[in-house]
């Protein structure tokens, strides 16, 4: 019965006209360029060489972030929908083992499945993707139908999927992978796959009903339900897509490493969330873009290779990376508060 029950503090009836909004990615792009320039300068001072003008370094930098990036495309969609996914790193590990076990060279006598060697690479790839899809489907169904918080559901999957990866070969790595399969991870392929996936879902989020519903659910779940959106079905769909992309990342990683290892992907989930958040996604939902996430992933890559280039100890790298993630979120919160108080 409080008389100030109006939904929001009313602002001016005629908001200021004519001011075009700049895309939110512009500021984060500026941060990325600033960091490259910073490393370039530090490079000349401390190492006596250029950071940017070294194609090999750039290639390594981009390649190592491609796998995180593929995951981050899925995680970003979950975050936009107001959820979170902690399981993606473990799902990468699980997929890596399953895909590798079906990709061993023909006639290899110690193969996991001696009768299933030398298969067309379609099979290990399909198995890996399916495995990721199922993990995502389970995540989504748990969250949508049992109403447990996404944090808990995906935490459970994180532990269990890692368990599957370890159990699969009792922790033994799987080697002797077939060349046609390994080709998926060679050269620029991981980057092409990452950018392809990013492009597809950028378009999907911007222009399709799927995307509009994802933003709507994240912005206000109750309002989305009252507007006729089948919220449960959509949640299952988005988590399944994210699972599928984790599976894809696992396949790409296995092909690039030419071996399947149970411990692979540990911590990827946090890097993917970080890329998404640095790129402007809001953990309270309804806000975020794939373009921002791509830039976020590149920023993480620049940090890692920049510090390596400057011979900064790996432990310091982690410490600084944590600080950057926090700074990105603080800056974002500040920006949002300012927007609300206009």
């Amino acid at each position, binding site marked *: *019965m*409080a*008389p*100030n*029950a*109006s*939904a*929001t*503090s*009313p*602002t*001016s*009836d*005629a*908001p*200021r*006209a*004519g001011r075009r*909004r700049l895309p939110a990615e512009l500021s984060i792009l500026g941060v990325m360029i600033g960091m490259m320039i910073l490393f370039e300068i530090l490079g000349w001072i401390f190492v006596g060489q250029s950071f940017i003008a070294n194609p090999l370094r750039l290639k390594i930098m981009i390649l190592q972030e491609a796998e995180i990036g593929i995951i981050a495309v899925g995680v970003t969609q979950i975050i936009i929908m107001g959820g979170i996914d902690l399981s993606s790193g473990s799902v990468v590990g699980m997929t890596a083992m399953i895909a590798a076990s079906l990709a061993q060279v023909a006639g290899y006598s110690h193969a996991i499945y001696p009768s299933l060697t030398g298969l067309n690479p379609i099979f290990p790839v399909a198995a890996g993707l399916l495995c990721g899809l199922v993990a995502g489907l389970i995540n989504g169904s748990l969250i949508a139908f049992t109403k447990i918080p996404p944090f808990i559901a995906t935490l459970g999957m994180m532990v269990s999927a890692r368990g599957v990866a370890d159990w699969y070969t009792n922790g033994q790595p799987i080697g002797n992978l077939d060349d046609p399969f390994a080709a998926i991870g060679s050269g620029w392929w991981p980057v092409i796959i990452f950018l392809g996936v990013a492009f597809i879902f950028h378009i*999907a989020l911007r*222009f*399709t*009903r*799927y995307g*509009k*519903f994802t*933003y*709507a659910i994240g*912005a*206000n779940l*109750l*309002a*989305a*339900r*009252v*507007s*006729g*959106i*089948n919220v449960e079905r959509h949640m299952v769909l988005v988590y399944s897509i994210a699972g599928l992309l984790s599976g894809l990342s696992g396949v790409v990683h296995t092909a690039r490493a030419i071996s399947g290892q149970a411990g692979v992907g540990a911590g990827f989930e946090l890097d993917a969330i970080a890329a998404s958040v640095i790129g402007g996604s*809001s953990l309270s*939902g*309804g*806000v975020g873009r794939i373009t921002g996430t791509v830039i976020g992933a590149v920023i993480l890559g620049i940090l890692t290779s920049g510090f390596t280039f400057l011979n900064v100890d790996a432990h310091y790298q982690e410490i600084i990376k944590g600080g950057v993630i926090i700074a990105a979120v603080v800056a974002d919160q500040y920006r949002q508060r300012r*927007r*609300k108080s*206009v």
Partner: protein
Amino acid sequence: MASLSPTTAEAIRNCGAVPSSDYLLEVEGVRKAFPGVLALDDVSFRLKRGHVHALMGENGAGKSTLMKIIAGVYTPDTGSFRMKGQEIRLTSPLDALQYGIAMIHQELNLMSFMTVAENIWIRREPLNALGFVRHEEMRRRTQELFSRLDIPLDPEAEVRDLSVANRQMVEIAKAVSYDSDILIMDEPTSALTEREVEHLFRIIRTLKEQGKGIIYITHKMNELFEIADEVSVFRDGRFIAEHPASAVTRDEIIRLMVGREITQMFPKEIVPIGDVILSVRGLALEGRFRDVSFDLRKGEILGFAGLVGSGRSNVAETLFGVTPATAGQILIEGKQFNMKNPGVAMDAGMGFLTEDRKDTGCFLVLDIVSNMQVALLRRGHASAGFVHEREIEQLCQQQKQRLRVRTPDLEEPIINLSGGNQQKVLIARWLMTKPRILILDEPTRGIDVGAKAEIHKLITELASQGVAILMISSELPEVLGMSDRVLVMHEGRMTGILDRKDANQVSIMELASR
């Protein structure tokens, strides 16, 4: 007179040197404005020792605001307070507690994962020399308190395991445990059964005998005559009258509560009413409402009146499939529908403007187009999943112009609009789906007069186009001004349907407080 600090007042109270006065509390000239609303205007109020003083008034009359001021939750713009003749100043709920004023809030404020005893003595736990809580002592004190009030509860029970009624008892015990002289109860019986109400009244009588003063906010006439000694009536933020409860009649109180003139601001047109489009038979949602039946015709505006919490919004949510019915039938043009989710209702031609813009209406972080188009996207306006952006943009532009949404462009985030413009965007969301039945829950709550009039005009216009409208409103003038018929609810039951000619403030209030 100089005002006392809380601690001084407590000291005075403890040594018994209380200045004698008939009145426990005297409040004078209280004024309180919120942005856009004058909630209280020059209000005075007095409470006698050992009396129960009831406050009555319509929703928004200012009762709760006054109580929150007395309990130190809000600070008034002007006004003086005397407690037992001593001038006091309240700046926080803690202040009020120390003066001996305790409020039992409408929304219960207990910590559900803690025990009853822990909840009661929070911040005042008996401690031993090392600073650890003496659980035995706390339990003993709780037991003592409970036996004084005749409350049969285990001090060690966790609050989350208690029924609403028992939580209420804990709240009361907590208030009493502060040795308060004044207890404020804001609709304490709204969630209680008859037997529990009797128990509560026994406790209140015990407290009266101990010389406490009780301020009792209620909407229920029969409670008023059973428990109150005095009654004060409020209307539109003003104090209207005070009477001894034994010297007034129910009708007099209703007249005092509604006594305002109905202004001719509603552009109601009498339009030809068509065939029945929506029939509701014996609709029920367990625990919320039961046995609701009515017909709604094309071009008709059916007002839903009743107090907050009478189940009006629950009926709307059930009709629209947000909370599926537990019994009853919903027929649209004679065909029965199982409204198991909002999608079904939308496909049947319904639209639903929800009560709470922020909680269930707006996508605050998204822009106007996203907010408008969302209901439309359910069917059509896309090929292979790709939304026809240009087409939708055009439809949104049309709505923007039709409803005169004041914004430079449609990419503006909705959070930057005023309440009235936000509401227009939400109405546009439903108009775009071309509904045949439109449910409007508090369509003009919290918006300025200009936007209000525009929305009223729009509702009339829709009715004249044959849209059947079900309008819930807590503002009686709005219900009376706009409706062809008025359905009144009270405590989850339909208490009557009034024709336009029979509906007036008194007849509605009678049905709403029956």
